[in-house]
């Protein structure tokens, strides 16, 4: 199948040939643009890495953009010692992974029901849940904190996992809804004729088709949970329950901030997200190629 895709696309060449001269110039400009934009997207990581070895003067005044003049490893030392890194790291991993799993589990079921099944109020409830996407988090912090206390969740992993999931469901359901609407109805019809029940159909036929979307959402939700700051700041009071973003507080003073050490902390905190992304992105890529084969 993959090769036939190539064949088809390759066979376009003769048509294009007729406009070749014109196309070449735009092509070169376009290619150039793609590479420039790629550089622009890649530079921040390099910059963050440089930054983590500098002091405040270099960061802001003498050398904001180039490589560091001296490698200040003490930034990493102070990031690692001031911060209970291993513990915070573990907390972040647990909270983020649990959020990803729970969010995907709930939102695939919910969006299947709203996108493909027929019941009264399906549109209403779909939009109802999408409200989660545009509630300013800062507005509900205090009510949320009271709620978490009343549910007896204070200073437990669930005190973060549950709010993160509840908020992420909105985004995930909207993405999944779009995907589910574009899968052909014949899938269920065939399953139905074969005598499969709805749950079998959902888990065996529909979910496999959602793989690219699910992998994409795994990335989105992971990033969301990993980098989340305002809710964690308000809800976590126990030092042993803190997540990585809260550790950045150690460097920010009222009048001065130790930006270099903060940069080092951010490098440490960013690595897992980059790895997680590259891994799942490759999954998406594979899934999409296979998914295309199923449909084509």
């Amino acid at each position, binding site marked *: 199948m993959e090769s036939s895709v190539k064949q088809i696309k390759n066979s376009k060449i003769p048509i294009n040939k007729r406009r070749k001269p014109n196309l070449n110039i735009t092509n070169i400009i376009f290619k150039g643009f793609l590479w420039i934009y790629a550089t622009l997207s890649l530079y921040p990581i390099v910059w963050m890495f440089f930054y983590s070895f500098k002091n*405040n003067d270099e960061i*802001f*005044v003498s050398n904001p953009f180039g490589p560091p003049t001296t490698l200040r490893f003490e930034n990493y030392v102070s990031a690692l010692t001031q911060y209970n890194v291993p513990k915070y790291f573990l907390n972040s991993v647990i909270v983020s*992974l*649990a959020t990803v799993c729970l969010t995907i589990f709930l939102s695939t079921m919910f969006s299947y029901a709203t996108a493909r099944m027929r019941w009264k109020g399906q549109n209403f409830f779909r939009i109802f849940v999408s409200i989660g996407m545009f509630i300013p988090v800062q507005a509900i912090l205090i009510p949320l904190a009271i709620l978490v206390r009343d549910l007896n969740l204070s200073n*437990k992993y669930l005190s973060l996992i549950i709010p993160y999931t509840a908020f992420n469901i909105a985004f995930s359901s909207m993405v999944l809804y779009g995907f589910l609407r574009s899968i052909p109805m014949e899938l269920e019809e065939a399953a139905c004729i074969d005598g499969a029940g709805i749950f079998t159909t959902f888990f065996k036929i529909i979910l496999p088709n959602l793989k690219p979307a699910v992998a994409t959402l795994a990335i989105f939700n992971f990033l969301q949970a990993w980098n989340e700051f305002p809710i964690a700041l*308000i809800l976590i*009071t126990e030092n042993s329950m803190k997540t990585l973003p809260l550790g950045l507080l150690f460097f*920010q003073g*009222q009048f001065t901030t130790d930006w270099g050490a903060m940069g080092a902390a951010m490098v440490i905190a960013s690595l897992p997200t980059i790895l997680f992304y590259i891994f799942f992105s490759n999954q998406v890529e594979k899934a999409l190629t296979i998914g295309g084969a199923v449909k084509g």
Partner: protein
Amino acid sequence: MKTKKLISLLLIAALLVFSLAGCGSKTNEETAGTGENVTNADTKDEIITLKIYAQYSDDDTKIPYDYAVEELKKAYPNVRLELDIQAQDDGQKLQTYAATGNLPDIFQVGTSQIKAFKESGNILVLDDYAKSTGFDKKLHQSTQSLLWTEDGHAYAFPYAGNELVLMYYNKDLFEKHGVKVPETYDELKEAVVKFKEVGIVPLSIFAKEKWITTALYDVFATRLDAGGIKKLDEGKGSATEDAYVTAAEKLHELVNLGLLPSGATNMNYDQAASLFYEEKAAMFINGQWEIQASTEKLGDKVDWMFYPTFNENPDAKYAFSGGGAPGGYAVSPHSKHKDLAAEVAAFISEKYCEAKYLFRANPLLAIQLDPSLQPAEKFPPMMEKLANELPNITSTTAFAWGLTEPKYKVAIEDQSQFLLTPKYSPKEFITELDKALKNLKN
């Protein structure tokens, strides 16, 4: 098939994580339980842990805190402090603590928070403790009002004294370019023009911070009305009075002449200070706590000047901007050990003063210290000069964090920063400020 694997993998991961989460919460409950046991057996020998919410992120906050903890170990061997580091979040977290009934035993509060906490019963009245610990006796005459608030009660043990806004300048640069150190507004204007011509920034300011923009406006306002921004906070007078209008107009006039570095309202402390230290800026505005850093970087080139006076009111030389305000270490009324917490709060505040004096070259403190204490290093000349002038100061105002009306505080902070951009007009400034003040009265 692959999907099945993926799903089962995800499910297993989820289960694992949840069981982990479960474990985590369980162990937590257990520790919470043991914590309670300790409090029930409240004997002298048992170790008591007090939660404390405080700033702890740079030398100015870490050194006093660490010093206080060390001293506490000696004086109260059975007390442990559990530090919760304060976030730079405009008091959001503290407010949530109060709203959910989770206030730490001891916490730092600012002036405007005291009011809201008082109204909602979230702050302990410390009158008796101030007397029993002898804290009240140690106050200076001028710092009585930092402990005893307007309603006659004490809510927080202060440590910072009447700190001041200073205008620092580089003597060398003034000499080199033949500019007179300004004593009047016209001379200041001349200095701005001259420095601008030779490509030197006249006045560096970290105007990304809104308290310093408020302070700069206050410096101008106090040239005409010694009450400055504090008078408006107290509900006396109005923003449309001549003093406030003229101050805004004059400040904005200088801004248009190039008083500040370009992009000043987006400069942080490091950037603005570096302009001054590298002699790219002739003047710099900050609190008197800048004395130490500036002396380190510029040696005897740096000095502070009296704010230039205006023709309308030449006697304003000793009317200073800045000043102290109620605030410091407060205690939760819901604390299980509130008597002890109050004692400890007073103790810590006193030790903060000592640390600031001993290690931070800062003699502007809330309380008088034991004369036997001697700082590690001799005070810089600028501090000596300030100490000599202190008795002559006729009036002070307040820093932005010392204003009592939060609504007014936000308005003056936002508007004073706005005024430092060329495209804003003094008229807009006064209108918005006036609106905010009228809103307060409704």
